[in-house]
C-alpha cells in the first residue's frame, strides 16, 4: 500500500494535506460560484433599470444560472463544514419556490369560491378574479366609490370546468400533434379547441353557484341588464396579448352559463395557440376569471385624465365626455367635449365644446344602437359644473389611493347617477415640457473614466468618507465618495444622490445594493479621492463621467428616460423576482442576526455562505498548526520558525527539501507579506517596557500556566494565490489569510490578532492602535476587547499585494508594542508614528 512505503511522518502529513487540499478546492470553487452568481444578479438588476430591452428567455436563463451557482455554493459549503448548513438548502428551496411562482407558466391557481361578489373583493384578490374585477371591488369596498354592481367567477371555477372535462390533456394532445407551417393551421386548431370547450358541460355545482350569485345580484342591482366579460389574471399572463376576446352584453339569465363558457372558449385565439406552442406552456396559462357586471344605461360617458397629458403640470385634470355609451369616444368616432378642471378646488378652468350629432345607446332588444342627438343638445356642454366637480373629486381620490396619475372611465345613467367603470395608471411623459438634454459638450468634465455600476444621473455636493465612522454625518443629497465599496455604505443609500468609489467593481455586494436603490453609481474612479468636500458635481453613471456643477436638466431628462418601461409586464416580472433575489438583509457577520433563518433572498444566501466558507477555511487552515510534524521549514534571515505546507503542490515534490527558500516561496500573497517583514527587519531591541508592563507579562504567563507559548512554531498553508499564516511572535498570535487572483471579486485579506502578553488595558490599547491603522488602510474591523478580526475585500491583485506588504511591516512595527503603551497619549503617539512610517500619513498631517 502506498502509505506503508512512506515514513510515518510523510503519511501523517499526507493525510493532513489531503484534507486541506480537499477543503481548499471547495473553498476556491465556492468563491468562483459566489463571484459569478453576484455578477449574474448584478446583470439582472442592471436590466431592470430601464436601459435595456430583454425577453422572458433572458429572465429564465439568468435566473437558472444564479440558481445553479447557488446550488453549487451550498454543496461546497456543506463539504467545507463537514455536513453543517443543511438548513441553508431548506432556505434556498423556499426562496426558489417563491421566485418560481412569479415566472409565467408556473403560477398556481388560487383556491377560492367559484363566485365572489364585488363587495367582498379588493386588489389583493387579483390572482383569483383578475385585475379588472379586483379593482372594481377595491374601488367599491375600500374607497366607497360608486361602481356597477356585479360578481366575479373566479379562476378556481375555470380550473374546475377544465378538469371536470379533462380539457387540459385533450388540448395539449391537439397542440402536440400540430406542426404549423401556415397561419391557417393555427386558425383550424383554434376553431377545433373552441368547439371542444363550447361542447363541454359546465359542472352542476359551478352552474348552481353562478345562478345563485346572479339572483343575489338582481336583488340588489338597479339595472336589469348584465354583461359578461373576462378579467385578466395579472400583467404577465397571455391576456394582455391574446387580442380580442368575447364580451357579451345584455345577457338573460337562461343564457348566462352558456355565455360564460363562450367567454372561456374565446380565449383560444390563433395568437394564444401560437404563444402556448412557442413557449412550451400548458393551457393553464390561459386560466381566466369572468366578471358579471350590471350594465349602466349611460346618458353621458367619458374619461378623466387626472393630469393633462399634454401639459402635466398645469394644475388641471382633463374630463372628456360624449352623450351615450363611451365606445364612440374610445374608438375616436366622435370628438368629445373637453373640460379642464382645477385639481385643487375642482372648479372649471375652461371648456372646449364639440358638436355631438349622434350617440350610442343600449338597445332593449340586446346589443347597442346609434341614435341622433336632439339639435338643441348637440352644441351644449354634455356635463354640468356640479357633475364635473363630483367627477373631479372621485378622480383625485383614485389618484391619491393608487399614488399615481390615473386614466378613469366613467358613465352617468339616465337617473343622473355617476359610476366609475375603470381606473388605470396614466403614463405622463414630461419629455415635451422639459428642455431636451443639454449639450454635454459644453459641460466641464472633471473625470471621464469611471465604471458605471448602476446607471443614472445624480448630483450634489461632494462628501468624502473613509470608513463607517464617517457615515453618520453624511448630509442629504450629497454625492458620496468612498475609497471602496464597503458594506456600511448601505446605511446612507436612502439620503445620497449618487455614489462614487475609488476602487471596486460590478460584482461587489454593494454594487447589487446600489442597483437595488437605483443609485447612480460609479466605481473604480481613482481621482475621486481628490474631489474637495462640498464641491457641487453631477455624476453621470450612464456615460461614466463626472461633470462640474449641478446639472439639473441632465438629471431630469434622464429621470424621464428611465420611466419608459416602468409599467410594462416584463419589467414587473423581473422586478418582482428581484425582490427575492437582490436585497441584502444580512449585513453584519458579527451580529447574532447573521443566521440561516434570516436569509430572505438569494443574495443573503451567497453572503451567508461566503462568510461561513471563509470561517471554515480559516478554521481548517489555522487548525493545521497543531500538527507538529507536518511541513517544511522556511529558511530566512528573519529569526522566525515558520513551517510551510502547500495546498497546490504534491507533498513529495518539496518534502524531500530541507528548507523552503524565502526568495522562492511559490505564493504571491506570502511573498508580498514577507517582503514587508524584511523591509522593517527583525528589531534588535523591543520598545522599552516599563517594569509594570513586564510584571504584567510575567503575571499573565504564570496565570496561563507556563511559557509554552514561546516555543510554538508559526505555520503557513500556502498556494500560488493563497496564504494562511499563523504567526506566533512573543505573546501575540496573528493569523493572516489572503487570496490574490486576477478576479478582483475573489480577493481578500483577513487578519486576526489575539492574545497579548501585557495587562488588559495595554492589550486593548494595542488593538486600538492596530485597528486605527488598518482602518486607515481601508479594512473593516470588528474588535472585542483584545481580539481583532479585520477584513478587506474587492481589491485588485496589486492592491492586495501592497496591503500585505504593509501588514508585514506593521507586524514587525507593533511586535510587543503593548509593553510600551502605558497611556493613551503614548498609544496615540505610536499610532501616528507608525502611520507616517508606513506612508499612510505625512509628517505635516501628523503635526497639523
Amino acid at each position: 500500500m502506498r502509505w506503508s512505503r512512506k515514513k510515518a511522518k510523510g503519511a501523517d502529513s499526507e493525510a493532513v494535506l489531503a484534507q486541506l487540499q480537499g477543503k481548499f478546492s471547495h473553498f476556491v470553487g465556492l468563491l468562483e460560484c459566489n463571484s459569478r452568481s453576484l455578477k449574474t444578479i448584478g446583470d439582472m438588476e442592471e436590466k431592470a433599470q430601464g436601459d435595456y430591452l430583454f425577453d422572458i428567455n433572458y429572465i429564465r436563463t439568468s435566473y437558472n444560472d444564479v440558481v445553479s451557482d447557488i446550488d453549487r455554493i451550498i454543496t461546497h459549503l456543506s463539504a467545507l463544514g463537514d455536513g453543517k448548513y443543511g438548513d441553508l438548502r431548506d432556505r434556498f428551496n423556499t426562496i426558489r419556490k417563491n421566485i418560481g411562482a412569479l415566472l409565467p407558466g408556473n403560477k398556481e391557481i388560487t383556491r377560492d369560491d367559484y363566485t365572489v361578489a364585488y363587495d367582498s373583493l379588493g386588489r389583493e384578490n387579483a390572482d383569483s378574479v383578475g385585475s379588472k374585477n379586483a379593482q372594481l371591488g377595491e374601488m367599491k369596498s375600500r374607497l366607497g366609490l360608486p361602481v356597477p354592481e356585479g360578481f366575479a367567477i373566479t379562476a378556481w371555477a375555470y380550473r374546475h370546468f377544465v378538469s371536470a372535462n379533462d380539457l387540459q390533456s385533450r388540448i395539449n394532445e391537439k397542440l402536440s400533434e400540430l406542426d404549423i407551417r401556415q397561419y391557417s393551421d393555427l386558425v383550424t386548431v383554434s376553431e377545433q379547441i373552441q368547439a371542444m370547450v363550447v361542447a363541454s358541460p359546465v359542472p352542476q355545482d359551478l352552474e348552481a353557484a353562478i345562478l345563485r350569485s346572479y339572483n343575489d345580484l338582481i336583488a340588489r342591482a338597479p339595472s336589469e341588464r348584465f354583461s359578461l366579460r373576462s378579467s385578466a389574471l395579472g400583467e404577465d399572463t397571455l391576456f394582455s396579448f391574446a387580442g380580442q376576446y368575447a364580451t357579451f352584453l345584455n345577457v338573460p339569465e337562461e343564457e348566462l352559463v352558456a355565455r360564460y363558457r363562450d367567454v372561456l372558449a374565446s380565449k383560444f385565439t390563433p395568437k394564444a395557440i401560437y404563444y402556448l406552442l412557442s413557449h412550451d406552456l400548458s393551457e393553464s396559462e390561459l386560466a381566466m376569471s369572468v366578471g358579471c357586471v350590471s350594465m349602466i344605461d349611460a346618458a353621458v360617458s367619458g374619461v378623466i385624465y387626472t393630469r393633462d397629458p399634454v401639459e402635466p403640470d398645469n394644475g388641471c385634470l382633463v374630463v372628456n365626455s360624449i352623450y351615450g355609451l363611451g365606445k364612440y369616444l374610445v374608438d375616436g368616432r366622435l370628438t368629445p367635449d373637453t373640460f379642464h378642471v382645477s385639481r385643487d378646488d375642482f372648479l372649471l378652468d375652461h371648456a372646449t365644446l364639440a358638436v355631438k350629432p349622434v350617440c350610442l345607446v343600449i338597445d332593449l332588444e340586446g346589443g347597442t344602437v346609434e341614435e341622433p342627438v336632439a339639435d338643441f343638445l348637440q352644441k351644449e356642454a354634455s356635463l354640468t359644473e356640479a357633475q364635473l366637480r363630483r367627477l373631479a373629486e372621485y378622480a383625485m381620490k383614485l389618484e391619491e389611493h393608487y399614488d399615481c396619475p390615473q386614466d378613469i372611465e366613467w358613465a352617468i345613467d339616465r337617473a343622473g347617477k355617476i359610476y366609475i367603470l375603470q381606473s388605470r395608471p396614466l403614463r405622463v411623459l414630461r419629455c415635451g415640457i422639459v428642455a431636451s438634454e443639454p449639450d454635454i459638450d459644453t459641460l466641464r468634465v472633471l473625470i471621464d473614466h469611471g465604471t458605471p455600476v448602476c446607471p443614472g444621473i445624480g448630483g450634489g455636493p461632494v462628501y468624502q468618507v473613509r470608513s463607517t465612522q464617517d457615515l453618520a454625518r453624511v448630509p442629504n443629497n450629497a454625492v458620496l465618495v468612498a475609497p471602496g465599496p464597503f458594506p456600511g455604505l448601505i446605511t446612507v443609500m436612502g439620503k445620497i444622490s449618487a455614489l462614487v468609489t475609488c476602487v471596486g467593481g460590478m460584482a461587489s455586494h454593494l454594487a447589487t445594493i446600489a442597483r437595488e436603490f437605483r443609485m447612480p453609481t460609479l466605481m473604480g474612479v481613482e481621482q475621486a479621492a481628490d474631489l474637495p468636500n462640498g464641491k457641487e458635481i453631477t455624476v453621470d453613471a450612464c456615460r461614466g463621467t463626472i461633470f462640474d456643477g449641478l446639472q439639473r436638466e441632465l438629471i431630469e431628462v434622464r429621470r424621464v428616460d428611465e420611466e419608459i418601461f416602468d409599467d410594462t409586464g416584463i419589467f414587473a416580472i423581473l422586478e418582482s423576482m428581484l425582490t427575492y433575489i437582490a436585497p441584502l438583509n444580512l449585513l453584519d457577520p458579527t451580529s447574532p442576526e447573521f443566521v440561516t433563518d434570516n436569509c430572505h433572498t438569494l443574495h443573503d444566501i451567497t453572503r451567508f455562505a461566503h462568510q461561513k466558507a471563509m470561517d471554515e477555511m480559516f478554521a481548517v487552515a489555522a487548525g493545521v498548526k497543531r500538527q507538529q510534524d507536518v511541513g517544511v521549514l522556511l529558511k530566512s534571515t528573519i529569526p522566525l520558525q515558520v513551517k510551510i505546507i502547500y495546498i497546490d503542490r504534491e507533498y513529495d515534490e518539496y518534502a524531500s527539501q530541507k528548507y523552503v527558500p524565502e526568495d522562492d516561496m511559490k505564493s504571491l500573497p506570502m511573498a508580498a507579506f514577507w517582503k514587508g517583514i524584511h523591509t522593517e527587519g527583525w528589531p534588535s531591541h523591543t520598545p522599552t517596557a516599563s517594569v509594570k508592563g513586564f510584571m504584567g507579562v510575567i503575571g499573565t504567563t504564570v496565570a496561563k500556566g507556563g511559557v509554552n507559548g514561546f516555543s510554538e512554531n508559526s505555520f503557513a498553508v500556502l498556494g500560488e494565490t493563497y496564504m494562511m499564516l499563523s504567526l506566533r511572535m512573543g505573546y501575540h498570535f496573528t493569523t493572516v489569510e489572503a487570496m490574490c487572483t486576477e478576479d478582483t471579486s475573489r480577493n481578500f485579506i483577513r487578519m486576526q490578532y489575539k492574545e497579548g502578553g501585557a495587562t488588559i488595558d495595554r492589550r486593548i490599547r494595542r488593538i486600538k492602535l492596530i485597528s486605527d491603522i488598518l482602518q486607515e488602510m481601508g479594512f473593516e474591523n470588528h474588535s472585542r476587547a483584545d481580539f481583532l478580526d479585520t477584513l478587506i475585500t474587492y481589491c485588485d491583485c496589486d492592491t492586495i499585494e501592497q496591503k500585505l506588504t504593509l501588514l508585514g511591516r506593521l507586524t514587525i512595527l507593533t511586535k510587543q508594542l503593548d509593553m510600551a503603551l502605558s497611556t493613551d497619549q503614548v498609544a496615540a503617539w505610536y499610532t501616528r508614528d507608525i502611520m507616517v512610517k508606513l506612508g499612510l500619513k505625512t509628517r505635516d498631517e501628523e503635526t497639523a
Partner: protein
Amino acid sequence: MQRILVVDDEPHMLKLMERIITEKTTFHIDCTSTPLEVPDMLARTTYDLIVTDLKMPGMDGMDILHYVNDRDRWEKVIIMTAFGSMEKALEALSSGVFDYITKPFKKEQIIFTINRAMRWQSIKREMLQMSRAFDSEPYERATEVFKREYVRRLLEKHDNDHGAVARKTGLSEEIIARLATDESAETDS
C-alpha cells in the same frame, strides 16, 4: 411616413419595442407575435424595415428574411438573436440581413440600428427616384438641356452679348448662338 414591422413570438418584447420606437422615433410601427401572419401583412403593406426575432416556431427570422429576398421586396431586415446564436447570425449576414442585434440590448443600440436602416432606405429611395429621372431622358439630352439653361442665364445676365458669354464660358460664339437659337426649335419638337 416610414414604417417598421416588428415580429417576435414574445408579446412582452413587442410591447417594449413598440414603446421605445414610438417614443424615440417618428416611424410608424406594426407588431405581430405570430410570424405566420407576416406574409398577409406584407401582402397588405410595404414596410421599410422588418425587425424580427430569430428563433420562432413555424416561421423563423431566417424564413422571413428569405421570404423578403426571394420576392425582391423593398424591406430591409434586422434580426434579433439570443445571446449565443452567433452562428445563425453570421449565416443571416451572408444571406443579406441588414444587421443583427443580440438580446438583451440597450435602448440606444436598437434605435441607432433602426435609424441607420431607415437612413439607408431613404437614401436608396432618393437614388431610385434620381435614376428613374435619368432613365426617362437619355443622358446626352439631359446634358444638352443643362447647357442650354446655363447659356440662357448667362446671356440674360450679359444683355445678350454673345461675345462676353463666349469669353466667360470658353465656348465658341457659334455654339452659343446655336444653343441660344435652337431652344425654341427644341421646345416645339
